[in-house]
C-alpha cells in the first residue's frame, strides 16, 4: 500500500467528507478515502455501518448530504441542488452518467434482467458505448448491422471470460446462484469500467465458489481495472484486498493493509461487539 500512496499518480477515486443523513440518522458521517489506479480496496464494517450507502453515493443512486466524490479528478457527486439551482439543471449526475464515466456496479441482491438470456444481459452493458437510434433501427443500415454484430461478439467475449458461455441462450433466472453473480459481474464489465464496484459479491457463495471468485477478481484487476469491494466474508477480504477501509456507525474507524486492520483495536471492538451482542 505504501508504495502506491507515494507515487505521484493521482487517485482514481477520492471521497471527501462524505456525509449522508436520512432524517435524524447519520448513515454516513464525514468519511474520507482514496482509491488508487489498479488496486483492490475493501470497504468493510458491521451490518448497518453505512457501506452500501457510501456505495450508492459513489454510483449515483443517492446524492450526498454534504461532501464530495471525485473520479478521474472530476466531481461526480455533490449535494443535490434545491430550488432554482435544481431548475437550472445543477443536479447530481444520474447513475447512467456515472456508468458512462467508467464506474460499473453489481448489486447486493442480484438484479439481473431475469427473463432475458445471459447474452442479452451482457449486451445491456454495451448499450451506452453504441449508438444506433430509431432511424438506424428502421433502415437497418450496414453500420447498424455491423454494430449489432459487434455488440453480440463483445458480449460473447465477456461471457467467455467469465466462463459462462454455456449459458449463452439460457434465461438469467435459470442459472445457478453462483453463476448469476458471475453474470452480473460480466454485465458490469461489458460497460468497460475503469472502476468496478462489487456489493458483497461473495454473499451466498460456498467456499469453492468464493475461491474461484477471488481468483477472478484478481484476473479482472490484472486487466487494468480498479476494484472496490464491499464484503462480509472476512477471510475473503483479508486475502484479496491490498488495502481496507473499515466503517462503523457511519464513521471511518480504520484504514490500512489487512494485517494493520486486523491488529487495530477499534476494529476488533466493532466486530467483537457485533458478534457478542
Amino acid at each position, binding site marked *: 500500500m505504501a508504495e502506491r500512496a507515494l507515487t505521484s499518480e493521482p487517485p482514481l477515486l477520492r471521497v471527501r467528507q462524505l456525509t449522508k443523513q436520512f432524517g435524524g440518522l447519520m448513515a454516513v458521517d464525514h468519511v474520507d478515502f482514496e482509491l488508487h489506479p489498479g488496486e483492490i480496496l475493501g470497504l468493510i464494517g458491521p451490518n448497518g455501518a453505512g457501506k452500501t450507502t457510501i456505495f450508492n453515493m459513489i454510483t449515483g443512486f443517492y446524492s450526498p448530504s454534504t461532501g464530495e466524490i471525485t473520479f478521474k479528478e472530476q466531481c461526480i457527486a455533490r449535494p443535490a441542488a434545491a430550488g432554482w439551482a435544481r431548475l437550472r439543471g445543477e443536479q447530481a449526475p*444520474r*447513475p447512467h452518467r456515472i456508468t458512462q464515466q467508467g464506474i*460499473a456496479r453489481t448489486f447486493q441482491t442480484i438484479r439481473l434482467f*431475469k*427473463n432475458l438470456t445471459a447474452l442479452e444481459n451482457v449486451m445491456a452493458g454495451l*448499450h451506452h458505448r453504441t449508438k444506433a437510434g430509431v432511424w438506424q433501427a428502421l433502415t*437497418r443500415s450496414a453500420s447498424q448491422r455491423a454494430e449489432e454484430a459487434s455488440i453480440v461478439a463483445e458480449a460473447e467475449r465477456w461471457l467467455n471470460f467469465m466462463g459462462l458461455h454455456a449459458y449463452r441462450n439460457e434465461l438469467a433466472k435459470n442459472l445457478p446462484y453462483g453463476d448469476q453473480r458471475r453474470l452480473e459481474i460480466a454485465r458490469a464489465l461489458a460497460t468497460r469500467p475503469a472502476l468496478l464496484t462489487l456489493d458483497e459479491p461473495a454473499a451466498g457463495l460456498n467456499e469453492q465458489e468464493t475461491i474461484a471468485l477471488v481468483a477472478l477478481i484478481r484476473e479482472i484487476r490484472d486487466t487494468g481495472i480498479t476494484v472496490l469491494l464491499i464484503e462480509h466474508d472476512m477471510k475473503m477480504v483479508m486475502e484479496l484486498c491490498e488495502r481496507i477501509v473499515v466503517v462503523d456507525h457511519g464513521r471511518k474507524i480504520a484504514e490500512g493493509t489487512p494485517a494493520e486492520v486486523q491488529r487495530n483495536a477499534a476494529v476488533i471492538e466493532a466486530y467483537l461487539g457485533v458478534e457478542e451482542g
Partner: protein
Amino acid sequence: MNLSWLSRFRERPWLWQSGLILFAILLPLPLGDYYRTVAWRTVLYIMLGLSLNLIVGYAGLFQLGHAAFYALGAYTAAILNLQLGIPLFWTFPASILVAALFGFLITRPILHLRGDYLAIVTIAFGEVVRLALVNNIFGITGGANGLSGIARPRLLGLEFRQPIYHYYLVLFFLLITIFAMRRLENSRLGRAWLYVREDETAAEAMGINTTQVKLLAFVLGSGWAGLAGALYAARITVISPDLARFMESVVMFCIVVLGGTGSIPGVFIGALGMVTLPELFRPLKDWRDAWLGVTMVVMMIARPEGLWPSRRVQLELQESEAPHG
C-alpha cells in the same frame, strides 16, 4: 403429420405472412360498404393499438390518455386543410410531428412517475386536450361541434371517396407500421425498452439513460397515433372532440392489454375483440359495455397475460405471481 405442417409454417414465416397480407387485400372485395367500413375501423384500431403497444407493451409505461394524441393528429390535419387549404396527404407529416411534439412536452416532466401515478396524469392530460378542443381553443377547433368539410384526399387524380380506398390506405400504413415495429423490437433501442421494463434500476446502472429511452417510446407512440388520427380525418371528414374521449383511450388500452401486452398478433386479436365484434353485433349494442365488462373480469382472472402474449411478458407475469424468497 399435423406437426410437420405447422413447423413448415414456422420455418418459413413469409409463407403465412404473405398469406395474411393477401387475405387482407382480398377481404373487402366481396363485402358491402358497411362491412368495408368495419374492416377500415378494425385496421385503424390495430394501428392505434400498435402505437400504444410501443408505450405500454415495449417500455412498460401506463398511458391512459392515448386518444388525446389521436385527436391531435386528426385536428392538425383538419385545421391545416381547412384554414390553409393544404391537401390532406400533405398534412400527414404535420399530424405526426404535432402529436409527437405534444407527446414530448407532456411526458417529459412526468416520466419519473411510476405505474399508477403515471396513469393518473395521462388520464388528466387526455381530459385537458378534450376540454381544450370543446372550448374552441384559439378559435380554430370548432368547439363542441368539431370541424367539418375536410376535403377528401386525392392521389394521382383519384379522389378517395369510397370506403374501399380508405381501407387500402390504412392497410398500407398498417403494413408500414408492422414493419417498423418489428425492426424496432429487434434493435438496440428495442432491447433498451426491454431492460427498462425488466428492471429500471439495473438498466440505469448499465449506463442506459432510462428517461431518454422512455421518452422516445412516448414520442414515437404519440406520433404514430397522430398519423392514425389524420387517417381518420381523411375518411370521416368530420371530427369532434369525442375523438379524445376517455373511453377511446380505454378501448386502445384494452386492445393492447387484452390482446397481449407487447405482442403484435395480440394487438390484432385485441382490436378484433374490442372493435370488430361490437360492430358486427350492432343489434346488441346496448349489451356491448356489459359484455366488455364481463370479458375483462374473466380475462384478468383466467388469462392476465392476454390472449396472445409475447413470450417475455408471459414470463414476467408468472414471475410476479410466484412467491418471493
